[in-house]
């Protein structure tokens, strides 16, 4: 561990020297360790990439874990069809510049095949993603899927292992989690079962933003403050788009907003913000009084254990 006389703030990644390691270095090292362990223990892993900030960090860590070689797994985007255009272009640009393989699993295909019912043009497709994801895992015979979920996001996620076991139906059974001792991650499963691997388990929202600032990680522009037409619905500010139309009595307002999370456009709320740079976002997140999902995710508001219920079905 760093000794007190070492420089603790300067970070010159090219200089050789007795660099002190801080908590972001430890979180980064831990995540890289987990990614290498899963890549080594599992036969066919995949990295889930939504274009959100957590998965952007995950992709950045994969670069650090495996370059100069290519990733030992493909990247997969589960596409609800209800996307923010800024996020779609970000996904394409990012994957193209990395030169990695992208699989797109479309909720629309699941609807067309009759695997799930169409909730209509303005209905949420968030929960439908589970079927699309599980079908893709079966089709490609994936035995591990990396996700950017963090334990500080939700009380059910706070209970989950770093390598989280899914049975042959893709379900999470919180009462039967495998023991997970020390750093001895156990990656073997039977055919048809799989693991979800969460290298960012111990990161908080603030850690993520401090790391994005330090590493200069690119994000979709909607994470930073911009002017946008929004309507207020169920206590959330929803962006007016082809998927969200003002309903009776809803007034369209033009506000300075940004997004704290990125998901299905019909469910993901914006927050009022003037934080236009990564440093300003770090300040804003440090002073926030409402949680990331509480402020922005309609899908968690359905019931007391909404996240647990979705996870049991096989959600991210």
């Amino acid at each position, binding site marked *: 561990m760093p000794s007190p006389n070492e420089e603790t703030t300067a970070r010159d990644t090219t200089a050789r020297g007795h660099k002190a*390691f801080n908590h972001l270095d430890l979180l980064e090292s831990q995540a890289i360790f987990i990614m290498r362990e899963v890549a080594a223990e599992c036969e066919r892993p995949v990295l889930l990439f939504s274009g959100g900030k957590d998965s952007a960090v995950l992709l950045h860590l994969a670069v650090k874990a495996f370059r100069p070689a290519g990733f030992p797994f493909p990247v997969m985007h589960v596409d609800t069809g209800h996307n923010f255009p800024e996020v779609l272009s970000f996904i394409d640009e990012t994957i193209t510049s990395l030169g990695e393989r992208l699989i797109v699993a479309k909720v629309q295909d699941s609807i067309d095949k009759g695997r799930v019912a169409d909730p209509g043009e303005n209905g949420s497709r968030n929960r439908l993603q589970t079927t699309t994801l599980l079908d893709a895992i079966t089709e490609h015979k994936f035995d591990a899927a990396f996700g950017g979920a963090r334990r500080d996001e939700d009380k059910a996620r706070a209970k989950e292992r770093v390598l989280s076991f899914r049975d042959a139906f893709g379900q999470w059974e919180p009462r039967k989690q495998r*023991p997970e001792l020390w750093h001895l991650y156990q990656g073997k499963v039977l055919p048809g079962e799989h693991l979800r691997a969460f290298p960012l388990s*111990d990161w908080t929202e603030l850690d993520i933003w401090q790391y994005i600032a330090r590493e200069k990680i690119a994000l979709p522009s909607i994470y930073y403050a911009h002017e946008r037409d929004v309507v207020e619905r169920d206590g959330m500010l929803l962006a007016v788009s082809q998927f969200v139309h003002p309903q009776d009595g809803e007034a369209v307002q033009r506000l300075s907003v940004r997004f704290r999370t990125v998901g299905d456009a019909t469910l993901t709320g914006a927050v009022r913000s003037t934080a236009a740079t990564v440093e300003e976002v770090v300040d804003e997140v440090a002073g926030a009084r409402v949680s990331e999902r509480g402020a922005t995710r309609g899908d968690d508001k359905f019931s007391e254990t909404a996240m647990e219920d979705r996870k049991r079905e096989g959600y991210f």
Partner: protein
Amino acid sequence: MSTTTHREETTDLLRFATVGSVDDGKSTLIGRLLVDTKQLFDDQLDAVAEASVRRGTGEVDLSFVTDGLRAEREQGITIDVAYRYAATPSRKFVIADCPGHVQYTRNMATGASTADLALVVIDAQSGMKEQTRRHCCIAALLGVSEFIVCVNKMDLIDWDAKRFDAVEADVRDLAAALGVQRVTVVPVSALLGDNVVEHGSASPWYRGPTVLGALELAKAGDWTGDDGTTTRLPVQWVIRQVGERRSYAGMVAGAPLVAGQRVLVLPLGKETTVTEVSTYDGPLDVAAPGISVSVDLEHDFDVTRGDMIADVVNPPTVTSAIEATVCWFGAQPLKVGDRIRLKHTTHSTPARVTAIESVLKIDTLSLAPKEELEENEIGVVHLATATPLVVDDYSKNRITGSFVLIDEKDHTTLAAGLVGLPQILPQG
């Protein structure tokens, strides 16, 4: 949330786990600690209050802060570990709130395996129970070197100082027997908040720190950090660099890894020099324990995942037969002759139980002869492995001294293993 220090990247991190019997108030204490230090967001606090009303628990049920599963709230118990993160201006905390039931011992061990400190919770009315002893014993076995003991529900015994003194004496005796040297004992009411974050006025006779005060004063340090061995690097992954060159990736353990260090490649037994230590961001002169690096070696040996690169001075032991302390979680007893998969660092091998020597008696902290290990028992066993292990005693290194035993049929983890005899017993 600390708003004064967020621009700095704090280094000081304390990992702790709650320890103790069911219903003594571990989750309520963590809820109280998080609420009173303002770690909870407004909507999370509202959700806890709403759930308390819906489930008719009367007052706001602080255990709901960490007991997030439906079944936990229905039954009012903790089933699995909840991890929570907190920060005060002076340090960051990773909290593992562990279950107290004996049937969930495997989950408690999961939470305690990466902890540096145990927050022991004891109900002042009943005092120490067998389960408290069992948990303290497991925590100490796993290498937890400091206890903060909360004698809880003091409000229910009218803050009786004599009763507190009696519980304190018991727990200090146990800690001494377990070899835990740093112990702080605090009288608290997790329900009302006295002596958790603020002292309150209920116990003027108590002059020690609050729970938060004790947590801030505790010795920090990462469990992967400096231990009693020289440098170890279990090889995790081989990175093919441009051209023919290969680098070996892994996480440093034991002591810092230095460019130019003379090392052994084990179990091969060949000596060479580390020519470069690097991360994706470039070369380093020194990498501390807990840092993921890749190294280049002077010689082109056949090095693969599962091998270990270690300092030539005081290297680890290469062996296919170990004596180990095992905490058994399997529903079926562990017997001599059983075949099982063993995972140690980045190396997996088939193994066989060649002998079961004894079981640890929780009440007397002594070893008694036994031929099988039953669920949640801790015992001393001998294992033979198909391929050699590169090990240290667990008391010297928590990374290279730990292993798990895995069911070969369904891949469930069945045991936590520590190389060597239980360190809590009188030695010699």
